[in-house]
């Protein structure tokens, strides 16, 4: 039953990836810039958390 559940959902996730493979929003300069800033922001946060984790281990 668990196997069927995972098989079904993995298949469903693939379908979702295919369905939304092309972003519908118009990729203007402002949109591209905002998404870039968002990526950098998230990388910064992850780096901060890793730093905290390492400093806790030490």
């Amino acid at each position, binding site marked *: 039953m668990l196997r069927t559940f995972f098989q079904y959902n993995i298949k469903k996730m693939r379908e*979702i990836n295919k369905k*939304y493979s*092309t972003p519908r*929003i118009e990729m203007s300069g402002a949109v591209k810039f905002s*998404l870039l800033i968002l990526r950098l*922001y998230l990388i910064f946060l992850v780096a901060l958390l890793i730093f905290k984790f390492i400093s806790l281990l030490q």
Partner: protein
Amino acid sequence: MKFFPKLFYKYRKIWKIIKLYFIISGPGIVVMIADNDAGGITTYAATGAKYGYNLIWFLLILVPVAYYVQEMTVRLGAVTKRGHAEAIFDAFGSFWGWFSLFDLILVNWLTLVTEFIGMTAALNIFGVSPVLTIIGVCILMGIMVFKGRYWTWEKITLLFCLINLIYIPGAFMVHPSVSTILHNGLKPNFPGGFNGQLFFFLMANIGTTIAPWMLFFQQSAVVDKGMKEKDIPWGQFDTLMGSILTVLVAIFIVIVTGTVLNGTDIESAAQASQTLMATNKYLGTFLAIGLFDAGLLGAICISLASSWAFGEVFGWAHSLNNKIKEASWFYANYFISLVSAALVVLIPGAPLVLITLFVQVIAVTLLPAALVFLILLLNDAKIMGEYKNSIFQNIIGTTTVVGIIILSTLYGVSVVFPNLFK
């Protein structure tokens, strides 16, 4: 003798408008009042206890902040007929879609745990065991959706929203000095100077005003309610009423703790209730009932926000108008997240404080993304048509969003590095 019938006919039009508002109202009021959840109540209680009435002016600023952000979800939901999760998938592709969905599920689940912590702590004051509280809450939340009607669920939730206003009579019970409130509270000031601790409190108040689940919840609720483009003005009015009410409740909590517990440090709203019990039994009871209700409202909305998001993306039937048999995955998600979060509170020695802190950290990874997506979606003419943001809305919306992102990020960072602002 004909005075009353005449009066009735004269004001029939107004009455019709009021009736229409009660039909259309819901998502805005519910999301805003549920925003005063267990964590929110604790923040406001601690703010009042620490700084008295001095930060009331800051809370008033939060009315437009909350309104302008949430109003955008009304327009987006009414125009696209899609929840926020689905809208992100559709507009930005699967990478940002999965990121938002899994982040939302995680932060919602952790927040749900904090709601149960608040609810069990509140009823514990009356001698109700955590097990009994959790069983009762799960049964109650099951009953609310059992009917398979959005309308029933919404009206019961609105009733709980009404209980959230208990802090207003509570504030009158402590007989605060109105002149002192007006003098200290309405004049922008930084008590004790602008230091790290004050900054932390300001950030915490902003952080509790806009939470990621609120964007997802209101947009999905607007869609589930079946609101159309013509209903947008009503939805906006509903959101405005909600944002006024949520800040009003926050102010009255500040007045209660600012009057009775001024100058003390409190850790939680439950602790504030217990302290107040010693001085005024009824007031402590009011605060505890309010805390339980706040946790319950939070739990109701957060568990639904997750289920709606999953349902939208996976294409399951995901409406409260569906019976349990018709939307089994949707309701399974609702109950699994609810019960699993509840069970965590019952685990002996569970790191509940750590979970509470972790919520803030995870929230800062999702909130900026969700807000940026919201602004970008509202600016896409292809998606929004004539309902896209005007220049004025963009100036207000972008300023608000940038402000929230900076303050909530600093709040999240200060949770990870507690000595940063000391």
